[in-house]
């Protein structure tokens, strides 16, 4: 049974890592629904957030294959209920639509969106939320003439307890202890 999974992939900031990951997904014919890449909270560590639709069995397999990549530190797989996540969307709407009174403003308010820019020709609406909410807002804005629409990939925060920096610290310590043991054995 296919369902949506969010993969949080922590890696070294290395050229080509995205290529290596997509090779694994492409081989298994898995489409990337959304992708976000940026630096993580830990210095030098990159965070890639991928959303894929596949089976639990397949996501486990690909997660292990991704984690096997030399520069990947850790892969976390989450179902939607295990994370807090958002996407951001920007809508460019013709200013003429303001003529239609304050209907537009009401929509923006109802959707918890906001107006970022207003110029004589157009205005830009920003909405942060889940994909479905953004889609719904798009439907509501379309009658006013959406000139441009852009949305980001998913960003996600996990509910899990053990944070990556704790994990990294453990790794470094384990290595240092091992090195020391070897040193004392000599």
């Amino acid at each position, binding site marked *: 049974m296919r369902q949506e999974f969010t993969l949080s992939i922590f*890696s070294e900031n290395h050229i080509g890592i995205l*290529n290596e990951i997509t090779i694994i997904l492409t081989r298994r014919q898995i489409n990337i629904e959304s992708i976000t890449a940026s630096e993580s909270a830990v210095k030098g560590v990159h965070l890639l957030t991928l959303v894929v639709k596949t089976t639990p069995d397949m996501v486990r*397999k690909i997660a*292990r294959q991704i984690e096997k990549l030399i520069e990947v530190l850790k892969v976390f797989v989450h179902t939607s209920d295990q994370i807090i996540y958002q996407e951001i969307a920007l809508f460019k709407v013709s200013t003429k639509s303001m003529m239609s009174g304050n209907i537009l403003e009401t929509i923006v308010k109802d959707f918890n969106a906001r107006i970022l820019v207003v110029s004589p020709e157009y205005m830009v609406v920003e909405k942060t939320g889940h994909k479905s909410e953004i889609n719904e807002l798009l439907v509501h804005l379309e009658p006013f003439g959406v000139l441009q629409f852009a949305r980001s990939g998913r960003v996600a925060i996990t509910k899990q307890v053990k944070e990556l920096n704790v994990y990294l610290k453990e790794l470094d310590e384990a290595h240092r202890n091992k090195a020391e043991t070897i040193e004392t054995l000599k």
Partner: protein
Amino acid sequence: MMTDKEVEETTAKVNGFENITGAEAILKCLIEEGVDTIFGYPGGAIMPVYDKLMDYDHKLRHILTRHEQGAAHAAQAYAMVTGKPGICFATSGPGATNLITGIANAYLDSIPMIFITAQVVSGLIGTDAFQETDILGVSMPVTKWNWQIKKSQDIPEIIAKAFYIATTGRPGPVLIDIAKDAQQEKLQFKYKKCNYLRSYNPHVPLNTKAIESAAIMINHAEKPMILAGHGILLSRAENELLQLAEKTGIPVAVTLLGLSAFPSGHRLYAGYLGMHGNYAPNLLTNEADLLIAIGMRFDDRVTGNLKKYAKKARIIHIEIDQAEINKNVLVDLEIHSDAKEALLNLIPLVKPNSYESWIREFRICDKIEYDRVVKEETKPETGKIRMGEVVKLVSDMTNGDAVIVTDVGQNQMTAARYYRFTQPNSLVTSGGMGTMGFGLPASVGAKIGKPDKQVITFIGDGGFQMTIQELGTILHYHIPVKIIILNNGFLGMVRQWQEMFFKKRYASTELVNPDFIAIAGGYKIPAKKVTERGELKAAIAGLLAEEGAYLLDIDIDKEGNVLPMIEPGASVSDITLNYKG
């Protein structure tokens, strides 16, 4: 007054550095890592390295093959028989792309290798310069790791990393692409081996709870079987495997690449698994109540139809690569570990035992296989010479002590079935990829790695012609390999499938062959054609007695089939013993 150069050198020395070119640094790194043999082929972009190689020829022996694919296979075979990483050089563009089959082959068979390719000067990278290929992009799916160096200063660190990655954990090939100007530019050289990368943890702490569970499962099993793979050899755990088997009395079956990890003549040897493997271990996989899989990956050629695989058995999987666990077969107990470490911890916990009636089932199957397949294949009295009888004779006449190299196809399956392996790492074959053309260059690498052993290559008339130019390497370096062409005038394995599954329509499988004896003569390799059974023994004796290289071209039954066979899509227990068209 000191010249600028002298000032530079003195300062470097005081600081514990040496001021050398990137090309020299590459060679020094290799020496630091214990390398003494390199296989390769030069070209424009790698010329600085080859030039420096002349100054290091007392420490680094370079073998010039006749094709980069040959260099890759030879280096792989060298790695397989020595346990040291295989080293291979090639130039940019076509030199690098010619390596790809060899790299992919090493990747699927988990062989530690370092490929060093040259790249056009850094300023031209990305411009479609002459002989530029994106070898990082091309090799990415078939390497454990790859990297491009554009600055000479990065050479020591990256090469150290390459060795660490290639040789630890599940080993594999690594490719380092080095721009020509980085080879020419000077650097302050100092070498430090790599033993830690925070994103790569080849050593997983052993889960002792899992080992205890495994011992309990083993101690309670009634029909257990060990499935030993290449991981046993890679982790040098042959002795531990033997101890586990002998203490528990559990029969040991091996995969193709696991052959030679357990002595073929041992009373607990259950045979070779898979499509053309032995009858007993395949059939009884579906009778076993416990499979202990060690350092193997449940390849489809081993499992046959997964829906009908080992349904009565619980499965313990000891495997260093976690991505292989629960990939093809869902297991009951996973032990993510190095094979040797797991076995060392497991052996004290298992009870001495014996499974006489279970072992008897294997012997009954062996008898059936002997009567219905082996006897006719290894001791035929009439008809043309058969592959099995050649391999059996070679096995008997070398006491199972040779290093056997194979190509791919019927020759490979027959060698795997009928040679009695007694020494670890004595089979060099292309497992995961099944690369035709592997055999001849691999024999070069195997012989260089194990100069004191007889190295004998079984090869088909098709595969021989895929890398036949390596006869030139054999001539050039006087490599005393023994080549046996099992010549059936067909792409035999494909013809067998055509016979069995395509109504005997022999589409593009019959070969018009050259005179192999004349070709060998051209390379000054003594050779003999064998057509009659009566000449066979003497011919093999002549091959074994020859000091230098030697080639036998043996006429084989044109339409011989390798049996038994698990037909594609069939279950391991539906293994076919007889095929009568």
